[in-house]
């Protein structure tokens, strides 16, 4: 059976579509029971999503989310759970912002300066993830727990460093504080879009590059093969001569390096400084998007775009009197229902395949199969 047969494509699309519909339904029910008109809210969001400004902002959010999703997905591919993307990108963005904004960087040529900033961010992200990798490899500490702890430690370190006595300066005209702004020589210009003054992040190209590299490494290199092999069956990988410890360490470091990029589009494309209002929590968004996109480079791109559109068009809801948190609920329901849907599709596909096998073997009855989804729900 070909990998891209009509049935497998349909089944592959069934789960995300079903999850989206289910999430819309749940949101509609919540809106309906709390006295709002669901259709009006959805229409307002749709109208907002079509505006050029929202389009640009959605693409910009999606760029940021995509880095985060790829960082999470690298870990997922070998059953590593890097919950620490959140701390890794915040620390990386903060330190590289201070580095790029420092006075000695003013004379450095633009290309070199931007490249140095990005490399710095990747190194910091990898270093912070490296702590978890070290604990896992040397002491067998679950990366879930250690990265949760490291997120909290990163929060403390960032607030310690982001202090006027250390790396921060006051932002003019407000009581916000941030790192010294990066001069025009260290910024990445954006692309214009007709109908709005907002610009598409220039680093969207880097996001595309990371996506391509991610795909190439996984499908065309020995490292990628070993990564996937370890994720699918550790004993089999060990039997084939893969050093699991080395794989854990390199996957975690790579994941951290990509996590370091999460803050870059925002830093180099729009805020030019790491201040108190720098976006937080993007690491968790990345987990959701990686799940929705099934760790596939293309799937995650669509998922990131969907997330960006939902987030940006939600802003209009507060004006219409609907709390915009309905979108957060919708997103959570999407994550949960998409994994449930994938599981149901998996069971269904298994049954189909068993039936095919049964037919090929000449027996008329299907071999015993796993319970049907309906029976499983009881």
């Amino acid at each position: 059976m070909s990998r891209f047969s009509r049935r497998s494509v349909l089944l592959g699309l069934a789960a995300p579509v079903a999850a989206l519909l289910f999430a819309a339904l749940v949101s509609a029910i919540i809106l309906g029971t709390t006295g709002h008109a669901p259709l009006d809210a959805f229409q307002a969001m749709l109208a907002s999503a079509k505006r050029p400004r929202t389009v640009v902002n959605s693409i910009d959010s999606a760029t940021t989310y995509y880095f985060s999703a790829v960082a999470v997905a690298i870990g997922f591919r070998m059953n590593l759970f890097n919950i620490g993307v959140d701390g890794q990108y915040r620390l990386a963005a903060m330190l590289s912002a201070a580095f790029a904004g420092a006075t000695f960087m003013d004379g450095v040529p633009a290309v070199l300066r931007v490249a140095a900033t990005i490399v710095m961010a990747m190194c910091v992200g990898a270093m912070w993830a490296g702590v978890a990798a070290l604990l896992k490899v040397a002491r067998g500490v679950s990366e879930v727990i250690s990265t949760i702890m490291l997120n909290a430690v990163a929060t403390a370190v960032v607030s310690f460093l982001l202090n006027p006595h250390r790396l921060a300066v006051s932002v003019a005209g407000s009581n916000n504080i941030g790192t010294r702004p990066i001069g025009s020589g260290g910024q990445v210009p954006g692309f214009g879009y007709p109908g709005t003054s907002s610009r598409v992040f220039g680093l969207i190209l880097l996001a595309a590059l990371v996506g391509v590299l991610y795909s190439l490494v996984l499908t065309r290199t020995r490292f990628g093969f070993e990564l996937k092999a370890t994720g699918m069956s550790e004993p089999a990988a060990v039997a084939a001569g893969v050093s699991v410890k080395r794989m854990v360490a390199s996957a975690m470091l790579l994941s951290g390096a990509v996590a370091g990029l999460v803050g870059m589009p925002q830093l180099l494309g729009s805020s030019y400084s790491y201040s108190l209002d720098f976006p937080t929590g993007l690491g968790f968004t990345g987990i959701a998007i990686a799940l929705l996109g099934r760790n596939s480079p293309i799937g995650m791109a669509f998922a990131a775009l969907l997330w960006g559109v939902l987030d940006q068009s939600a802003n209009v809801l507060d004006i219409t009197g609907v709390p915009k948190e309905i979108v957060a609920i919708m997103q959570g329901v999407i994550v949960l229902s998409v994994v449930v849907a994938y599981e149901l599709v998996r069971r269904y596909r298994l049954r189909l395949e068993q039936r095919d096998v049964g037919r090929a073997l000449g027996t008329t009855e299907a071999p015993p199969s796993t319970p049907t989804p309906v029976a499983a729900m009881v």
Partner: protein
Amino acid sequence: MSATGTAVCAGTVLRARRQRISPLGYTGIGLAVLAAVSAVRVATGASDLTSSGTVGAALAAAVPIALAGLGGLWSERAGVVNIGLEGQMVLGTLGAGWAGYQYGPWAGVLMGLLLGALGGLVHAVATVTFGVDHIISGVAVNLVAPGLGLFLAKLVFRNAPGGGQKQSPPVRDVRHLTAPYLTSWLGSLERRQWFLVSDLAAVLRGLTFQISTLTIVAVLLLVATFVVLWWTPFGLRLRSCGEAPYAAESLGVNVRRYKYAAVIVSGAMAGLGGAFLAVSSGQFRDGQTGGRGFIGLASMIFGNWRPGGLAMGAGLFGYTDAMQLRGSDAVHALLLLLGIALLVLTVIQARAGRVVLAAVAGVLGAAFVLWFAATDEVPPELVGATPYVVTLLVLALASQRLRMPKADGQIYRKGDGG
């Protein structure tokens, strides 16, 4: 049934027996730790290290963490990892705020418990029925709960008297109890500032003065959890689901039902922890839980998936939490304490022949002592990181005895035992 069930867990019980310390031993260790803290207090003059105020604040801070940890214990003992504790706690704060301002604090507590249990039910449906990865489902619960909390807060609290977009109207606190006579006598003893004696008096006073009724409920739940999970057939079967679900299944245990029960109780405990936060601080606020669900999870791992260890872990977190609000000299003295603890660990590990670990612990310990000697205060921003750093250190340097339930986090599919 219980006889065959015993066979399932016999191995676990035997291993646990071997390393168990007698109650007298625990008392001795506790006194030794207190003596060390007391010595540091006398040496540095940081009286807040053991003042009854600190101990009381530590206890209040430890309760929600311990409740979240208990939630983690229930579900992980049945083999389901529950990262969604944080979200279930948020639901607890929401329920307590909503019912609390209308019908009084105990109604709030009940509502928080119920909403938390509902969060647990969602996690159970996803993980047990649909076989979703436990971490993924937990992350999803953590995504939905704050969104739902804020959504409902905007709807029901905005127009309520004294409420706002992100907070509920005020909720009355439950009654606080004080042990009669004892506290004034202990208080006079505490003021003498004697070595060890005053510290012991301060600790006792902190544990008996103005104690929230909910704290007492939490302590009772801790004891009840131990009794139910370790001394009843129900608990034995529940734990067998976490150790060897297919073996339990072959003995006739309805593994799914036990997992459901465990995860729902888990959510209820976390919800109760959230309700404690809302009731004791006087209202529901957005972001009130502040990661305590995760810390609860860490305290349970810290405590080796046992109620007593969990309580110790929660106490440690509560203590460092309370320290943040105390004088800066007490926090500074904490550095010395941490250094000493690491140096003691160095000796223990060196005697056990683990050279590398001992060396790492020794270097870190020396660094903390040096940090203490070279500075006059700890930057306040870093104090908040203490519990997390301590957890990392414990996991990194002293965790060779931690043993989680054998089938923890694994997806169970009925009849797949092979």
